C-alpha cells in the first residue's frame, strides 16, 4: 500500500507508466468523484464571478448616478439664467436709455460720499 507522500513523489514518467498499465483496477466511483471535484471548482469560480458582476452592477449604478447628477447640475445652471424681457435689441436699447436717464435724474438731488 503506497502512502500519499510516495504517490506525490512519483515522477511524471512513472505516473504515465502506471496510467497505461491496464492490469490495475480503477475504482468505479473515481470518475464521479472527479466530476464532483470539477463541479465544485466551477461553482466556486462561479461565485467569484457573481461577486464581480455585483461590483460591476454597483459601478454602473454609481456611474449613472454621477451622470444624472452632472446633467441635473448642468440643467440647473442653464435654467438659472432668467429669460430676457425683450427679444428686440432696439426695444431693449430704449429701455436701457430710459433706465440711465432715470438713474441720472435720481443722481441729480443726491448727496455723494
Amino acid at each position, binding site marked *: 500500500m503506497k502512502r500519499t507522500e510516495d504517490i506525490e513523489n512519483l515522477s511524471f514518467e512513472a505516473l504515465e507508466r502506471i496510467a497505461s498499465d491496464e492490469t490495475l483496477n480503477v475504482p468505479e466511483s473515481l470518475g464521479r468523484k472527479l466530476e464532483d471535484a470539477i463541479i465544485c471548482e466551477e461553482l466556486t469560480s462561479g461565485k467569484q464571478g457573481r461577486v464581480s458582476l455585483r461590483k460591476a452592477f454597483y459601478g454602473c449604478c454609481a456611474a449613472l448616478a454621477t451622470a444624472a447628477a452632472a446633467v441635473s447640475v448642468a440643467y440647473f445652471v442653464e435654467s438659472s439664467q432668467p429669460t430676457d424681457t425683450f427679444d428686440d*435689441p432696439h426695444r*431693449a436699447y430704449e*429701455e*436701457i436709455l430710459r433706465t440711465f*436717464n432715470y*438713474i*441720472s435724474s435720481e*443722481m441729480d438731488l443726491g*448727496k*455723494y460720499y
Partner: protein
Amino acid sequence: MKKTILILASIAFFTTGLFAGNARDIYKKYAGKDNVDAVFISSAMFRLINALPEVKSAGEDLDFTPLMKSLTGMYILDSHNGSATGDLKRDIESYVGSNSFELLMEANGGGEKVRMYTSGSDKIIDVFILYVTENNSSECTFIALEGKMKREDIEKVVAKSIE
C-alpha cells in the same frame, strides 16, 4: 465617515451657490409676482445692442455708450405690491449689507429715499445698485447693473447729471 464628510461638503457647496444673495437671485424671486414690474437684459442682448448703429452714434448730452458697452446684465424690479415690497426691501438691504458694497450716494426728498451702491475695485465697478423706496408707500424700485464699468465713466455721468 469619509462619505458623510463628502456628502456634507457637497451639500454645503451647492447650497452656498444656490442661496448666495445676488441681483439675479433677487430678480428671480420677485419677477412674475403680482404688481411687480420686472426687466432683465442679458449679456447676449447687450452684445446685440452694442452692434446697433444708433449706439455708436449716440451724441447726446449724457453719453451712456461707454457704460453700455461695459455692461453684462441689467435687472430692474419695480414693486407696487405691499407684501412683496416688504420682503424685497429686506432682501436688497441684506444683499447690499452683506457684500462688499459701498454707498455711493444717498438722497432723501420728494417723498422718496434714493440710495446708490457700488461694488468692485478703485477703477472698475462690478455691480451698481440703485435702490429707491417711497416714504409711506409700498413702492420700491431696484436696479442692478452688472459688468466691468470704469469708475470714471460712472463719475462722468454723475458729474453731467448734477450740472
